[in-house]
């Protein structure tokens, strides 16, 4: 059914359609609307779930961990400081190979305190073993949650999935979306059938410690399965298209990229802005295109190399940075290209803390990249810098 609703509402309804048995909730802007909408859905009896109002995000993730271990599909949402607070638990969930979906609403990280959008928060958990999918618009983020449970619970994966959506830009924006029916989702996503769980009928010990003689191999197994999950992400995207008729890309997607001289590479809602910029440039005869990274973990190295190698210049536009080093997506793309292609890659950090990325910002980045800058920070305002 087509309706015009807030992004947060779209997420809440999609999650409800996935029939989680346990939801844990802790408020933090700009994720809060999601958990509020879900609590209303539960309060109205439209979803049979236990809704646990926890006392911190560390506990929110821990409640999900316990619930999944006991055999119930589970859900939570968080952002920024809350995401950082639960990092320890996220490593634990991935290491214990528990399927779970958490919405990572992208927001800047303190200090200074800032509630607006960038992607530094989910970048901070890229090493945990969680799969990460980044959504471009509200339809995609809705669809992504349904796909995420299917990917996560697949026996070949058994790793948690974070669905990343830009805070405010997607959560608080009203777009027209096509909401599937319960029947459609039930047919696509069967109920959770754990490979192992806490059950007195067949008791197991979960979370035993592993010494130097076996920890190394246990972590290797996680890496292998995380890398292998790439195929399941693609498979599920194809299956979703068959079932629901919608395609948002699988691990990457491209827009007017085949004959492009310059390619922008980015993740999340900024893809929409980049597509508009590309259309305007193309109308002037400029051969430019966009590569959207949809699945950041596992990192789609092969697919990206194939997509960008033939261009004359690649510009990575990202809303994150690894302090003391370079942009993160830029560094990973360069590593993937090593030995495969010598296309120059410019890394541009932009839009931190909710700073708007406009057509002018993208023009600036393109000009500076053409002038030879390899790592740049876009839209730095001199008057603000001098204010210090």
């Amino acid at each position: 059914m087509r309706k015009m609703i807030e992004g947060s509402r779209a997420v809440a309804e999609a999650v409800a359609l996935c029939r989680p048995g346990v939801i844990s909730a802790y408020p933090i802007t700009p994720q809060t609307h999601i958990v509020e909408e879900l609590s209303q859905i539960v309060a109205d009896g439209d979803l049979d779930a236990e809704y646990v109002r926890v006392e911190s995000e560390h506990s929110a993730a821990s409640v999900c961990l316990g619930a999944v271990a006991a055999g119930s599909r589970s859900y939570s949402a968080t952002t920024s400081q809350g995401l950082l607070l639960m990092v320890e638990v996220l490593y634990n969930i991935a290491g214990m190979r528990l399927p779970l979906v958490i919405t990572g609403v992208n927001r800047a990280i303190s200090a200074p305190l800032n509630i607006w959008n960038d992607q530094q928060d989910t970048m901070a958990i890229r090493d945990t073993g969680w799969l990460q999918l980044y959504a471009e618009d509200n339809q995609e983020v809705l669809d992504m949650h349904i796909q995420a449970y299917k990917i996560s619970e697949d026996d070949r994966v058994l790793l948690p999935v974070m669905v990343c959506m830009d805070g405010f830009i997607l959560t608080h924006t009203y777009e027209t979306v096509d909401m599937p029916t319960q029947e459609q989702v039930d047919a696509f996503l069967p109920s959770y059938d754990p490979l192992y769980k806490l059950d007195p009928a067949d008791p197991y010990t979960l979370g035993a410690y592993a010494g130097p003689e076996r920890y190394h191999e246990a972590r290797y197994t996680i890496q292998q399965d995380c890398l292998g999950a790439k195929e399941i992400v693609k498979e599920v995207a194809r299956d979703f298209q068959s079932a629901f008729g919608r395609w948002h890309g699988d691990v990457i997607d491209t827009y007017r990229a085949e004959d492009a001289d310059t390619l922008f590479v980015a993740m999340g809602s900024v893809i929409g802005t980049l597509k508009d910029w590309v259309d305007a440039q193309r109308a002037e005869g400029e051969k430019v295109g966009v590569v959207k990274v949809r699945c950041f973990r596992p990192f789609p190295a092969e697919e990206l190399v194939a997509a960008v190698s033939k261009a004359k210049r690649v510009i990575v536009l990202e809303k994150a940075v690894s302090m003391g080093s370079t942009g993160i997506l830029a560094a990973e793309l360069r590593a993937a290209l090593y030995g495969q292609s010598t296309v120059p890659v410019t890394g541009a950090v932009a839009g931190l803390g909710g700073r708007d990325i406009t057509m002018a910002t993208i023009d600036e980045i393109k000009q500076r990249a053409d002038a030879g800058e390899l790592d740049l920070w876009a839209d730095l305002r001199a008057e603000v810098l001098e204010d210090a």
Partner: protein
Amino acid sequence: MSATKPRRRPPLGVVTRPGTSLRNKTGSWGILRPVFDWEKCTGCNTCEMICPEGCLRHLEKKQYEADPDFCKGCGLCAAACPAKAITMSEEHR
């Protein structure tokens, strides 16, 4: 619910089977062993209850013994016995 296709084994290190500690014979730890005087025993079961290993048992009502595979020789049973029917002995190992 049964799947027609057999499922994979759990990933390495994730699941540990119950009771597998029984492979670890801690009886080699100690130097003392409890010696039970079945004549003095009143059958109160204190020793069996108090053992941190849970390796004491009784055959008949007042015939207690310790499992040499797991007894660490801590002496709690001897200390707790109200009838003083247990002594810790090195020779008895």
